[in-house]
C-alpha cells in the first residue's frame, strides 16, 4: 500500500496544486468579506488566456512561453475578477449571483473566442516537463513522496501559500483585510477604505484562480477546452473544509488530490480494483460532507463574508 501511495504521490500533488492556489485566492477574497463563487469561471479564464498565449508563443520560443502564459493568466484572472468586484463591492449586488454570472460568462465567452480562433474551441499546448529535485529526491521516504516528478509550478504555489500566510497574518494589509471580512464598519471608522481593500482582495483571488487554471493547462491537461471540471467549486469546498486558514486549505486540497487520484488510478491497482468504482469516486465528496457536518456548527467563517458593505448603512 505504501508503494502505491508513493507512486501516486506526484499525480496527487499535481492535481492538488491548482486547487490549492485557487483556494488561496478564495481565501483572500472571503477573508476580506467577498464570497467568490466565480472561482470556477476565473480558472477557465486563466486557462484560456494561458492557452492562447502559449499557443502563439510556443512555436517561436521554448519553455519561456509557458511562464509567459502563466503571467498572462494571472493578469487575465485579476482583470476579469474586477467584474465581480465591481458588481459586489461597488454596486452591492448579491455576491453569489454575481459570481454565478462570472462563471457563466467565462464558460461562454472563452469558448466563443476560442472557436473563432481555432474552429473547434480547443487549444492545445505542450505542457511543462516534470523533474526530480536533485539531492532531495534521493532522501529516504520523503524523497519519492515529495521531491520526485515535480512541476516547477508546484513549488511556486507552495511559495505563494507561504506568502499568503505572511501577508494575511503579519502585514498591515493582511490585518486590514481580515478586519474587512469580520467587521467592515470597524475598518471604515478606523479611516481605512474598505472598498479598496476588497477590490484588491478580489483581484488577488482572480489572479490566483487564473494561475490555477493555467497550471491545470500547463501541467496535466495540456489542452484548453472551456472547462476546469468543477475544480473551482471544489476549491471553494476546500476553503470551507480548511476553515479559511492557509494550512487548513493545504490539508484539504491535498486530501482531494490523493482521494481523487486514488479513485482514478484504482482500476489499475490490483489491491484496490475490487473496491466498487462508485465508492472510490464518491469518497472525496462524502468525506467532505462528513467534515462539513462535524465542523459547520463551529464554523470559523468570516462574519461579514457575503455581505455588501455600504458606508453608513446599519
Amino acid at each position: 500500500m505504501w508503494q502505491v501511495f508513493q507512486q501516486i504521490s506526484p499525480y496527487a500533488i499535481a492535481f492538488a496544486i491548482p486547487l490549492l492556489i485557487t483556494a488561496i485566492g478564495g481565501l483572500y477574497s472571503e477573508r476580506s468579506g467577498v464570497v467568490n463563487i466565480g472561482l470556477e469561471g476565473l480558472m477557465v479564464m486563466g486557462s484560456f488566456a494561458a492557452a492562447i498565449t502559449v499557443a502563439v508563443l510556443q512555436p517561436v520560443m521554448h519553455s519561456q512561453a509557458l511562464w509567459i502564459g502563466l503571467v498572462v493568466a494571472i493578469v487575465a484572472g485579476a482583470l476579469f475578477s474586477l467584474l465581480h468586484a465591481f458588481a459586489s463591492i461597488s454596486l452591492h449586488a448579491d455576491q453569489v449571483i454575481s459570481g454565478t454570472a462570472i462563471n457563466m460568462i467565462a464558460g461562454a465567452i472563452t469558448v466563443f473566442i476560442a472557436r473563432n480562433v481555432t474552429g473547434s474551441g480547443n487549444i492545445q499546448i505542450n505542457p511543462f516537463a516534470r523533474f526530480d529535485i536533485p539531492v532531495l529526491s534521493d532522501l529516504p521516504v520523503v524523497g519519492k513522496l515529495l521531491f520526485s516528478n515535480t512541476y516547477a509550478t508546484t513549488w511556486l504555489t507552495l511559495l505563494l501559500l507561504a506568502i499568503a500566510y505572511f501577508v494575511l497574518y503579519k502585514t498591515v494589509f493582511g490585518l486590514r483585510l481580515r478586519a474587512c471580512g469580520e467587521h467592515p464598519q470597524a475598518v471604515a471608522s478606523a479611516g481605512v477604505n474598505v472598498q479598496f481593500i476588497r477590490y484588491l482582495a478580489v483581484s488577488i483571488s482572480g489572479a490566483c484562480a487564473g494561475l490555477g487554471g493555467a497550471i491545470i493547462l500547463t501541467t496535466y491537461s495540456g489542452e484548453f477546452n472551456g472547462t476546469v471540471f468543477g475544480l473551482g467549486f471544489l476549491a471553494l469546498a476546500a476553503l470551507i473544509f480548511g476553515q479559511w486558514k492557509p494550512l487548513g486549505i493545504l490539508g484539504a486540497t491535498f486530501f482531494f488530490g490523493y482521494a481523487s487520484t486514488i479513485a482514478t488510478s484504482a482500476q489499475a491497482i490490483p489491491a484496490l480494483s475490487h473496491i466498487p468504482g462508485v465508492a472510490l469516486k464518491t469518497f472525496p465528496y462524502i468525506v467532505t460532507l462528513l467534515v462539513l457536518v462535524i465542523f459547520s456548527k463551529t464554523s470559523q467563517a468570516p462574519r461579514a463574508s457575503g455581505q455588501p458593505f455600504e458606508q453608513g448603512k446599519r
Partner: protein
Amino acid sequence: SGTQQTKAPAAENLMVGMITDSGTIDDRSFNQGTWEGIVKAGTDFNFKPKYLRPAGSTEADYDKEIANLHDAGYKLIITPGFKFENSIYTAQEKYQDSKFVILDGLPHPGNDYSKAKIGPNTVAINFAEHESGFLAGVAAALQMKTGEFGFIGGMEIPAVQRFNWGFQQGLKYANNNFGTNITIKAENFLYQGTFHDVAAGQHLAAQMYDRGVNVIFASAGNVGIGVINEAVARTKGGHPVWVIGVDIDQYSQGYYDEGKTKSVVLTSAMKCVNQAAYDMVKSVKEGNFPGGKSLVFNAKNDGIGIPAANPNLREDVISKTKEIFTKLKEGQITVADKGEGLLR
C-alpha cells in the same frame, strides 16, 4: 473570416455538413479524422464544408442539428458515431432530399436492431477495428521484441473492444510466428469508462508504466491523450516508454523533443474515417452514392492500417508488417472480432 450571407442552396455547389458526436472537431481521433476527409474533399471539389456541434448527447440534440443542416441547405450529412443511429433512422425518412452517412453505426429505432434499416439515401459504414488492432499489435511486438504490453480503452463499446481483441491476437501472432516475447497481464487491460478524463488516462498509464509495462495501446479519446501525455513526461525525464495511437496517425501528439521530430507514439492503429468520408463525398459528386448499402472498411479495401510513415519502427519491422497486411488482405490470416479466450 468575413460575413457569410444567406446562401440559397445553389444546385451546382455541393453542400456537405458534419455533426460531431460528444467530442470536438479536433479530438485527434474519430471526429477529426472524419472532418479532415471532408475538408480534403472540399478542396478537391471546391466546396466549403460545415460542421455543427450538438449541445448535448441526446437524440433530440442530434435531431436538432440534422434539421439545422438540412434546413440550411446541406444535402449530404455525415455523422460519426453510433450515437446517431436513432436520429439517422428518423432523418432518412423525414428528409428524403438529403443524403446521410453514418460511420460506426446502423440506423435503427429505439433499442431494436431487428428493425434496423438503411434508407435509400443513407450509407452505413463500419470498420474492422480488430484487423487494425491486430496489425498495430504485430508491428509493436516486432519492434520491441520483448516486453510487457497494456491496453487502456475508453468506454467499453464494440469498436473499442474490437481494437483490444485484435491487438491481443496480433501480439499472440507475433509471439507464435516471429519469436517475440511479449507478455500481457489481465490487470493491464482495462477500460477507463469515459472518453474525456485526461487526468484519469494519465494516472492509469502511470500505474502501468510503474509496474513495468513498456507499451500501452490507448483507444480512448481524451483518456488516450492523458496516456500519451504521461509517456511524454516520462520519456522527457529519461525513462522512455511507448504508446500505440488509435483511429488516426497520432504520431504528432507524442512529440517529446523541442524540435518536434521524436515521438512516444510507436505506431497507430488507424481506421480510415477520413478516407471513408472523402469517398462518400466523391461518390455524391460523381453520382454513384451507394445509398441503402452497409459498407465495411477493412484490410481488403485499405480501410484500416497503420500509418504510411512510422519513424519509430525499424525498416525490417515495416516490411514484415506489410507482409502481414497483405496476408490479411488475401484472407490468409483472419482476425476474430470476438473476445473469446482473450483478456476483457
